[in-house]
């Protein structure tokens, strides 16, 4: 039994160690730039002032856009896949990929959309405000 216990501990440690080598970090655009070529999770927003290009006729596997983070840094992003649903609606994105030169090459996009945050009271409140503003405008002569 004791031998089994030791084997168990050894296996757990070994598997956790292998897993540690696969860990990566959450980064801002600036810190991702300093780790060029390293796979990171970048937290940012889609820069809506810059064009989001996706033309499925030309290439259904190419989406390019510009990401901006809370510190104001921007980077061009290339995502070789179809444009995700609700892409423009998202308030925040987690971009998984690596900086290659000046461009962030993204492997996976996780979107955070306001619609999913139904239970968030602040979002609810804002929605109510929008609802209440529309009739007021109509009431004006």
């Amino acid at each position, binding site marked *: 039994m004791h031998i089994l216990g030791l084997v168990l501990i050894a296996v757990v440690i070994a598997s956790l160690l292998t897993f540690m080598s*696969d860990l990566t970090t959450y980064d801002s655009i600036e810190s991702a730039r300093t780790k060029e070529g390293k796979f990171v999770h970048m937290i940012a927003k889609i820069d809506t002032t810059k064009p989001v290009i996706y033309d499925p006729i030309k290439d259904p*596997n190419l989406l390019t856009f510009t990401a901006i983070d809370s510190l104001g840094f921007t980077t061009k992003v290339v995502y070789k896949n179809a444009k995700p649903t609700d892409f423009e*609606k998202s308030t925040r994105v987690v971009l998984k990929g690596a900086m290659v030169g000046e461009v962030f090459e993204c492997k996976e996009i*996780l979107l955070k959309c306001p619609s999913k945050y139904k*239970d968030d009271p602040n979002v609810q409140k804002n929605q109510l405000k929008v609802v209440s503003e529309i009739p007021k405008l109509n009431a004006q002569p």
Partner: protein
Amino acid sequence: MLIGQIGNFITILTFCSSLLAAFAFYRSASSNDILEERPWAKLGRVSFIISAVAVVALFVTLYILIYNHYFEYKYAHQHSKRSLDVQYLLSCFWEGQEGSFMLWSFWNAMLGLMLLRVEKKFTSPVMFTMSLVQLFLASFLLGIYLFDLRIGTNPFVLMRNEFPDAPIFQDPNYLAKYLTDGNGLNILLQNYWMVIHPPILFLGFASSVVPYAFAVAGFWKKDLVGWVRSCMPWSLFSAGILGLGIMMGAAWAYESLTFGGYWAWDPVENASMVPWLILVAGIHTMLIFQHTGRSLKASYFFIVTSFILVLYSTFLTRTGVLGDTSVHSFTGEGSTLYWHLIAMILTFIAIPVILYIKHQRQIIVNHQEESMNSREFWMFVGSLLLLISAVYIIVLTSLPFFNKLFGTKWAIGEDVEYVYNRIMVMVAMILGMLTAITQYFKYKDTTRKYIWSKLAIPTAISIVLSILISVFGEVSYDKFGTGFLLAIHLAIWTAVYTIISNAMYLITVLKGKMKAAGSSIAHVGFGMMLFGILISSSKKELISENNTGIGVPGLKDAKGREENPLENVTLIYNVPTPMGKYTVTYLGDSTELKNNKVYFKINFAKADSSDPSSVEEFEVNPNAFLVKSPEGNQLSSNPGSKHYISNDVFVYITSWLNPDNIKDTASFHNTPITAGDTVYYSNGFVLVNKILTANKYDNTDLPLVDSAWLSELTVVSKEGRTAQVSPAYFVKDGQGSFKTDTVIQQNLVLGIQRAKSGRVELALKESSAVMRYITLKAYRFPWINLLWLGTIIMVAGFMISLYFRLKSKLYVV
């Protein structure tokens, strides 16, 4: 307004009656004097029944709010909508935090009532735990303020009380004017699996407390041995239902989510699987205990931990600590739920730990090492393996929580699935092996001769079969190198071994007697699941491989590896496009106005290689919801699949150009033509082959029109593609009319016209509005049906074991 007050009253009633029940059962269980014990137990029983009735009433009340669309209530406003189909109104329940706690509470009440009926020995201590869970669940629905701290969220709050600052509530007619419809149900949940999966899963979660309650009761009443017998059937029930619930979630993910599979190692999936692994480990150690008297501590640990992990998974998925890692986004109600759940978890950890410390000296431990030739030895090894895999999964899943605790910023690296799969393929391999051989061992000791005589045939059959599979099965998943591929092949062998050897055990050793067959049947099902998982994942085939994508110059994979194949293919309306072995055509779409749902018609045709005249043809109908947003309609896609016995073709739309969104702004340009002319357009030219003129005076074949101009044209694009078109122009009673022709690939609309001068003109328009297209992904999942069949067989095995245990004298009712 009355109904809300009734709801509020019932909420408080549930809380108070479960509090009273917990207190009464505590007094009853703590007392050793039968005269004192009885009246407390009676009070507890009555209180628990009241709370159970109240929970049912609560359920009904909330359903009335949703069903009648009372949008002044926040819950109805947030989770429902007038246009929602009736069958999905139930799904509104589980979408919200409060509704799902209510569902849990409902099952807890039902299980408690059942325990009150059947349990004779440990009634009071077991019912104490049940009442305590009921109390905590009720407290999540309270929504009362203790000083500045809000405890729980009440599902019966009104919109106007929740958002008093919103200006709409200054208008006394706010309900009729502004709150006319709700926000509706998340479209991903509008799927039939979402009606049935949550109740089953929550029954699994809720029932995991019963084994825990028996373990605690045993230590509390100093009956360190007796609890196992009562605990066993409930553990089998819970493991069966929880397993079924998890796999129903997988089926939902397969049918309505678009990550292209049934399992993505998503935190929500992991969190529900880990308690199941631990519970299954606990069932095996309890079996060891019942037959040999060993592994009591391990059993106690596994059974108790399984329920604590259920609570922990609730904590992970509901408080928002998972944050950015899950495709399921959850935001809790902030810090109150966070601490509320932590308090619950700590309470349910403290109880068994204190009891264990108090009574551990009385546990009789057998210090003698088990024989390697005993069944218990290998069963224990298997249980440890289940524990290791559970620890591995839960540590990885908890990473965001650890980040929050320690202020770190770690995340799982590049390929999340591989990080799990490379460990799990090992686990599957060893677990398959153990499951195959262990039943042939007898408890305590077995002679080698006996084992080999029984195991030789299944071993030989499985080796032959799996070599055949390895050689002819074309399992060649080498994305992660040869080592991983080898592990997959070995795991396929052990999965086959498990199926064969347990099926043979059923025939050769048990001689088909059903009484002890439950475990063998469950193991066969488990083997089939492993086999289905291994084959469908490693042979998962991308049909929509796109090699025409334009590469971006200067961009290469960071490690210099080859790029993953590009997975999306664009199909133009009515243009057959080769895709893998198929020729695929987008035949059209139809919109269901009520739900704003679009159904796509996509035809797959495959010519038989041996007989070109026979074509295998089928239609797949993926669909998608159109979600209105300021940027235009967004698509939320549901996959469609063609099911065969041996494989599924699985398709979903990734992009669609909605014709309603485009305005045709292009106009025709006219050029005079005669036969033999060439007219250029932006991407090529048009050859005028022939122009025919006819009128009804010299041609009696024209009964419908007075005169006609017909043309035969060839469109040649820069890429060298040609298309034949034949636009025409008719005149009847002095009125002209076009018959235009289009070349969709070239965005070209062509017509001919007779100009006033009498010459024939070619009218040419280049317009993107003629273009109708979709972009899709298509996969093939071979043998995925084995996974679903295996699940059913495994659950059936659990239930057969449960049935015969309840029938036999092992379980004293």
